[in-house]
C-alpha cells in the first residue's frame, strides 16, 4: 500500500466528484481488504478467498482477456468497465481508448479504495469516470444518463462478476435489454392469475415492460373466474372438484403454450397463482422461450412453490435467506430476490374535492382484507377517527362500526383516493398466526410502496427488509406494538408538517428506486445476464434479409424488401418512408405497407399503439 498513490488517486476522483472522494476516504481508513503479491510482484486483491486477478502475471492475464473480446474501437463509443479490481484489465483498455470515454463501475467501496492505494495514478488516468458503491438502480440510472445518445460497450471483469454476480451480471443484462428495447424489444407474455390480490399487478407489470420499450401482452385468465366458481360449486365430491380444477389448470396452461408460440414470445412470465404445468414449461423450453415466475407470496403460508419452482428457468421471490436456501435444495438453481413496487402512473398524489375528502378522509385508515392480526390490532384503535376499508371483514364485531361500504371490495381508484385523503395510513402486514404485529415479518407488501408513491403518510409495522428499501425515521416510520403505534399516531397527528415531509421523501425514494419499471428492468437484466445468447426473436426489429426469408424469396414482399438488403434492423416506418418517396405505380404489397404505416400512425396518435 502506498499512501502517496492513494492521495494522488483520491484527489483526481474527488476533484470530479467530492462526495465519492469522501466515501472512498472513509473506506480507505477502515479498509480490511486482503492483498496478495503475485509472482511478478504486482498486488492482487483477495475477497472471500477469491483472487480478483492472476496471482502469477495479472497484466498478462488482462491482456489475454482483452484480446479475447475482439473490440474494434470506432473512435466515439463509450466503454463501461464493470468491476474495477485492481485495474489491470483497465490498463489494457486505456492503451487503446482515451480515459474520457471510459466509465469504471465498482460495487465494493473498500475494494475501490484499496485499488487506489495499491496502484499508481498511471492506472487510474485523469478523465476516467467512476460509479462506486452505488446500488444497481442508481448505477443503471447513471449509465443511462451517460449513454442516452451514445453507443457503448459493457466490459464485465470476469472475476468481479464471479464475486458479485447479482450485481455485475444483472447490470450487464440490463444494459443489453436496454439496447434490445431500442431495436423493438422483447415480446413478453404475462400470465395473469384467475383472481386474487395480485391481479391488478398484471397491468402495472405490462405498463412497465411497455414503458421500457418491450412489448407485453397479458393472457387474462380472470375471465375464467366465473367458470372456476361454477366448478367449485358444482359438486360436493372433493374428488370430482379436484379433478375438474386440474382439468381447468391444464386447459389454462395449454392456452399459455398456444399463445406464446403464436406470439413468438421471448419470455413468458407468471405471477403468483397463475396456472402452469410442467408439461407446458417443457414445451416452451423446446421452443426456446424463457420462462419465469414471480412468486409474490409468503412462502411459509403458501407452499405450492415446492411443486413448481424447479420447472422454471428463473424464479423471482420476495423473501431472502432461508427461502432461497430451500429453493436451492429442491433444485431451483438461482432464485432472485425481487420485491414488489408501485406504479407511479396509478399510485400518485391527487387533488381531492371537498366531497372526496369528506368521503375518503379520516385521521387513520386501512385498506385491506380482514386478517386475524388486523382484527385484533384495530380493535385497539376504535377511539380514533378511523375508517376501515376492504373486504373479508365478516363477523368482525365492533369493527363493523368503522367498516366502510359494508365491507365491499374497494377499487384501485378509490384506494388511491383513500391513501391521499388519510392523515395516517395504517399499514399492518397481514398475518394469520400472530396477534397484532408479526415479529418475524420480513417482506414488504405492495401497499408500502403504493402509499409511498402516493406521497401518503404511513405507519408501517416493523419488517426485516424495510430498511433496505426506505430510510426509517426520515422516509417512513414504524411500530412494533399497539402502544407504540398509539404513541406515534398521537405525535404525527399533532405534527402535520412532519407527516408531509416524510411522505414526500418516501415518494421521491419510490420514484427513484421502487417502481415496477425498476423491477422489470432488473428481472429482464437477470435473465439476459444469465443467458448471453438471449436476444429478441421476432420481437426485435427484423432486417430485410429476415423478412425475405420469412416471406419466401418468391413472394412480392421479398421483392419489395430487396431494396432494403444490408440496411440492418428496420422499422415499419423506415420501410414506408422509402416507399413513399419512390416513383411510379405502387406494387400491391407496397401499397399494403404504406397502409399499415398509416394505421400505425393513427394508432400512435390515438395512443392505442
Amino acid at each position: 500500500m502506498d499512501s502517496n498513490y492513494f492521495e494522488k488517486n483520491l484527489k483526481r476522483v474527488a476533484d470530479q466528484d467530492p462526495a465519492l472522494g469522501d466515501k472512498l476516504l472513509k473506506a480507505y481508513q477502515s479498509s480490511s481488504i486482503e492483498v496478495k503479491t503475485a509472482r511478478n510482484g504486482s498486488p492482487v486483491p483477495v475477497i472471500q478467498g477469491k483472487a480478483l486477478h492472476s496471482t502469477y502475471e495479472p497484466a498478462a492475464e488482462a491482456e489475454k482477456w482483452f484480446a479475447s473480446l475482439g473490440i474494434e474501437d470506432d473512435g466515439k463509443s463509450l466503454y463501461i468497465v464493470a468491476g474495477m479490481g485492481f485495474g489491470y484489465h483497465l490498463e489494457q483498455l486505456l492503451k487503446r481508448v482515451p480515459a474520457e470515454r471510459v466509465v469504471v463501475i465498482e460495487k465494493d467501496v473498500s475494494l475501490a479504495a484499496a485499488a487506489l492505494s495499491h496502484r499508481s495514478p498511471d492506472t487510474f488516468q485523469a478523465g476516467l469516470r467512476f460509479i462506486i458503491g452505488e446500488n444497481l438502480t442508481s448505477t443503471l440510472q447513471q449509465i443511462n444518463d451517460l449513454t442516452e445518445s451514445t453507443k457503448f460497450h459493457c466490459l464485465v471483469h470476469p472475476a468481479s462478476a464471479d464475486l458479485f454476480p447479482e450485481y455485475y451480471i444483472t447490470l450487464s443484462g440490463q444494459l443489453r435489454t436496454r439496447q434490445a428495447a431500442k431495436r423493438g424489444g422483447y415480446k413478453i407474455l404475462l400470465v395473469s392469475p384467475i383472481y386474487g390480490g395480485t391481479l391488478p399487478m398484471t397491468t402495472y407489470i405490462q405498463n412497465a415492460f411497455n414503458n421500457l420499450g418491450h412489448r407485453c401482452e397479458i393472457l387474462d385468465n380472470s375471465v375464467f373466474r366465473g367458470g372456476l366458481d361454477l366448478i367449485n360449486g358444482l359438486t360436493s365430491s372433493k374428488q370430482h372438484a379436484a379433478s375438474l380444477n386440474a382439468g381447468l389448470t391444464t386447459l389454462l396452461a395449454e392456452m399459455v403454450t398456444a399463445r406464446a408460440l403464436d406470439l413468438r414470445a421471448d419470455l413468458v412470465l407468471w405471477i403468483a397463482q397463475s396456472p402452469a404445468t410442467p408439461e407446458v414449461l417443457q414445451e416452451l423450453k423446446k421452443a426456446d422461450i424463457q420462462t419465469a415466475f414471480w412468486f409474490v407470496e409468503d412462502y411459509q403460508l403458501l407452499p405450492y412453490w415446492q411443486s413448481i419452482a424447479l420447472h422454471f428457468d428463473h424464479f423471482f421471490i420476495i423473501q431472502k435467506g432461508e427461502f432461497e436456501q430451500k429453493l436451492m435444495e429442491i433444485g431451483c438453481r438461482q432464485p432472485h430476490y425481487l420485491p414488489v413496487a408501485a406504479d407511479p402512473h396509478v399510485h400518485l398524489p391527487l387533488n381531492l374535492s371537498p366531497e372526496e375528502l369528506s368521503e375518503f378522509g379520516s385521521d387513520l385508515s386501512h385498506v385491506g382484507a380482514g386478517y386475524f392480526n388486523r382484527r385484533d390490532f384495530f380493535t385497539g384503535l376504535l377511539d380514533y377517527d378511523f375508517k376501515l376499508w376492504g373486504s373479508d371483514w365478516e363477523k368482525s364485531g365492533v369493527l363493523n362500526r368503522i367498516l366502510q361500504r359494508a365491507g365491499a371490495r374497494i377499487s384501485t381508484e378509490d384506494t388511491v383516493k383513500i391513501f391521499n385523503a388519510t392523515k395516517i395510513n395504517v399499514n399492518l402486514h397481514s398475518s394469520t398466526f400472530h396477534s397484532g404485529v408479526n415479529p418475524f415479518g420480513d417482506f414488504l407488501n405492495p401497499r408500502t410502496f403504493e402509499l409511498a408513491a402516493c406521497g401518503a403518510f404511513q405507519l408501517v409495522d416493523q419488517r426485516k427488509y424495510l430498511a433496505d428499501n426506505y430510510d426509517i425515521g426520515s422516509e417512513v416510520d414504524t411500530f412494533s406494538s399497539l402502544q407504540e403505534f398509539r404513541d406515534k399516531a398521537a405525535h404525527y397527528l399533532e405534527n402535520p408538517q412532519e407527516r408531509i415531509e416524510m411522505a414526500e421523501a418516501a415518494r421521491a425514494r419510490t420514484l427513484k428506486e421502487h417502481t415496477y419499471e425498476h423491477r422489470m428492468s432488473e428481472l429482464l437484466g437477470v435473465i439476459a445476464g444469465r443467458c448471453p445468447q438471449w436476444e429478441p426473436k421476432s420481437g426485435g426489429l427484423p432486417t430485410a434479409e429476415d423478412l425475405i426469408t420469412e416471406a419466401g424469396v418468391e413472394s412480392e414482399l421479398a421483392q419489395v424488401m430487396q431494396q432494403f438488403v444490408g440496411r440492418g434492423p428496420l422499422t415499419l416506418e423506415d420501410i414506408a418512408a422509402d416507399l413513399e418517396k419512390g416513383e411510379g405505380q405502387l406494387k400491391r404489397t407496397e401499397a399494403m405497407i404504406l397502409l399499415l404505416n398509416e394505421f400505425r400512425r393513427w394508432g400512435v396518435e390515438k395512443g392505442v399503439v
Partner: protein
Amino acid sequence: MAKALVIALARFGDLLQSFPAISDLHRTSGGHEIALLVPDDLVSLAKLHRCVDEIIPFDGDELLHIMRLDQAAVQQGVASLVPLFEAIETYQPDVIVNLTHTRFSGVLAASFPDIPVRGRLIQRNDDEILEPHWTRYFFSLLESRSCNGFNLVDLNRKIASDQCSAFEDIDISADHQRHVAEIIPAAAQRIRIAVAMGANHPLRQWPVPSWKETIRLLASEMSAQVVLVGTKSEIADAQSISDVVGNVVVNLCGQTDPAQLAAVIDSCDIFIGQDSGPLHLAALLGKPCVGLYLAMASAWDTAPYTSHGVTIEPDLDCHPCSESGSCNNPICHAVVTPEIVLHSIRHLLTEANLQPVADVSIKNTVFDPSGCLTLAGQPKKGDQLRLFWRTALQGLFPSTGTVPGFNKNVNAEIISQYRDNITILEKKLLEAVQQSMGRLQEQLDRGDYQDTLSSEIFSLADEFSSFRPLFDLYRIECFNSSAEYFSPIEKALAAQENLLQRLTRIQRLLINYTAIRDNQPEFALYNDAINA
C-alpha cells in the same frame, strides 16, 4: 350497371350520415351497384341499407393487435390486409367513393391506382388529391367550421355523386317488427316516444336529472309511453329513470343491435336524442325527431336529415365549443331545459308555433329548393355568416337545383359589408399576385418548382378574416388539389386562379343581390319568430 366501392370506415352515426349518398350513387341515372367497406362491428348496420349489394368488413382490431405486439409487423400486417385487398380486387369497382376522411382511408383509396376516386386520396410523397371540390370544402371546414351552413349528409352526397335522389332505403324486416311487438308492451292510445340519452362525449351529455324530468313530463303531461334506447353503459341511468317514472318507461338500453334499434325507433311516433347515431337513424327512418346540440355539437353541421326535425341548441357566445376543448362550467347544459324539449315535441305533434326562448335557438329542419337541408326558426349568433357562405358556395359550386345568388334571408347589412370589402380585397389580391408573378419566371428558370407565391396571399387572410372560408379553401388547394397539378408551384398557381375567380363570382352575386333576391322563389328560412 357500373360498380362503386364506398369506403365508410366510420362510427355508427357517421355511417348513417353516409346512407343518402349511397342511395344517390345507386338510384340516380347511370346508377351503381354498391359495395360498402365498413368496420366489422357495423356490418349489421350496413345491412339495413337496401341499395348495398355487398359488404366488405374491415377488422381494425386484428390489425391493432398486430401493431401493439410488434411495431415492425410487416409480414403479419401485410398478411392481415390480404383479405381486404382480395375482396376489393374481386369486386372490381369502377369507382371508389371515399366518404371517410382519415389519412388511412385516403391511402387505401390510392392503393388501387387504376380505379378513379371521389373523396380523399393520398398518393406517394403525401400527394393528396381532393376531388370533387366539395371534398376540398369539407377539409377547409377544419378551420372555418363556424361559417359552415351545410349538413354533413349533404356534403357526403355532393362528394359521392353529382345528383341527388329520394331517400327511403332503410330495410326493416318483418321479423324485427315482430320482435319489437314482443319486447314493447302495447299501450293503446298512448304516444310512443323513443329517447336516446347517450352522447359520444361527456361534454355533450345532457345531465341525467334533466332527462329524468323530461321523461317524467312526457309521461305525466302527454301520457306517453317512453322507450329508452342506448348502449350498455346507459343501462344504470335508464333503470334509475324507469324506477322513478314507472312502468310507462320501457328500458331497452344495451338490448338492441342496429337492426333491432331501427325497428324499435320505427315503431315509435317520435324520437328525442342528442346529436348521436340513434338520432340520425330516426331521421333516416322519417320519424319526427328532436335533437339536442350541446357543447361542440352544431345543428348546422349535423341536424337530423329529415323535414320532420327540430333542433335545440344553446345561443351562447361559446357555442359550439372547440372539439379539443374542455369546460368546467358547461352552461349550455343548463340553458336547455326539459320544458323546452317538451315544447318542441308539442310543436312537432301539433304544428303549434315555436316560441322564442332566451339563450336557446330552436329550429325546424327543412329542405331548400336545391334539395339541401337547412334550418329555419329562432336564429342564433353566427347564423347570418353561415347563411351568407352557404349561398355564396352554392353560387360557386353550382349543382342541379341550386338557386343562384343570395337568398332573401341573408340580411342586407351583411351583403353591404361584404360588397364594400370585396372590392378592396380584390385590389390587394391582384397586387400581391402581380408581385409574385414577377418573380415566377426567374424561379422557374432556376428549375425551382417550390411554392413561394402563396405567402403574400396568406398574409391577406388575417386582414380579411370575414373571407376566411375562401382563404381556407385556397390554403387547402395550395397543397391538395386535383390530379392534374403535380408540383407545388402548379398547385399554388391553380389555387390562386380559383381564388380570384371565386372572388369575382361572389362580387357579381353581391352586385346582383337585389335583383336575384326579388326573383327568388318563395322560401322562408325563418318563421315569424325571427321577423318579429
